[in-house]
């Protein structure tokens, strides 16, 4: 979603009012609804963690691995803004480089998560082993799914960049992707704190 759709007839006021670009506004509205979606899953996690009669199995969680993963995702957000800064300055090559870096970092993050899931499963924490397991995997799994979608999207933007779709005049496609990626990063900051730190 996001970019000017085909068959779109330019509105009389060229899609801007109140200083709002409509693609960007649409993205923000979508992100608002994403807040509530993650919020629902997160509430389930917190509810069961707070109300659990027995101590939950969060001692199994490996903070070192997740710490590394957190750094990876933070860095990927950094590469995305650097990419956006590049295209604003009209440097398509550097945009391509940073998008590539973002994709690599995203894949690394997902690999880390897959490894984490695998080792936790080995230790007996599964989707069906306890309510904690159910809510932990569902919540982090849906975040991982969003990272995955983000990687696909980044590849799409990268493809567009290689075909010369973006320039210093036309940055909205990169910016909107950036908003999504940073949002997924923020979700991780919250999950990291609520699941692993506390």
């Amino acid at each position, binding site marked *: 979603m996001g970019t000017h759709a085909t068959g779109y007839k330019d509105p009389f006021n060229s899609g801007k009012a109140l200083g709002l670009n409509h693609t960007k506004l649409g993205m923000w509205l979508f992100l*608002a*609804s994403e807040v509530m979606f993650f919020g629902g899953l997160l*509430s389930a996690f917190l509810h069961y963690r707070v109300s659990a009669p027995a101590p939950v199995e969060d001692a199994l969680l490996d*903070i070192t691995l997740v710490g590394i993963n957190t*750094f990876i995702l*933070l860095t990927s957000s950094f590469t995305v803004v650097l990419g956006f*800064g590049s295209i*604003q300055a009209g440097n398509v090559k550097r945009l391509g480089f940073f998008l590539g870096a973002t994709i690599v970092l995203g894949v690394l993050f997902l690999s880390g998560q897959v490894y984490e899931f695998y080792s936790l499963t080995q230790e007996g924490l599964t989707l069906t082993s306890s309510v904690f397991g159910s809510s932990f995997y569902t919540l982090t799994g849906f975040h991982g799914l969003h990272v995955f979608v983000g990687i696909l999207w980044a590849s799409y933007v990268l493809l567009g960049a290689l075909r010369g779709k973006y320039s210093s005049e036309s940055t909205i496609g990169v910016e909107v992707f950036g908003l999504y990626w*940073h949002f997924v990063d923020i979700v991780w900051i919250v999950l990291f*704190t609520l699941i692993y730190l506390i």
Partner: protein
Amino acid sequence: MSTHVDQPTGETHPSTRVYVVVFIVLALMTAVELALSMDYFVVPRNLLTPLFLAGALIKASLVAAFYMHLKYDTKFYTYIIVIPVILLIVFAIMATIS
């Protein structure tokens, strides 16, 4: 046309230096949090939770303000994203204590 100030987008974005500074702050904060959770410092447990929550809030706000340019865009986007966050907090609290 409207009461809001028309503000063209895409021209008042921060410089690369701001991006770097924000990244360093985020990384340092995360490192400190990790160290805290691994008990490198002796901090009472009941102080840690609010500390971590505050840390998450600051980090999330930094990303939103600088990387997502909320600080440079119209306030409208900030409202769009802050209102659901508030409602979500209300929901999470109410659902957990009910």
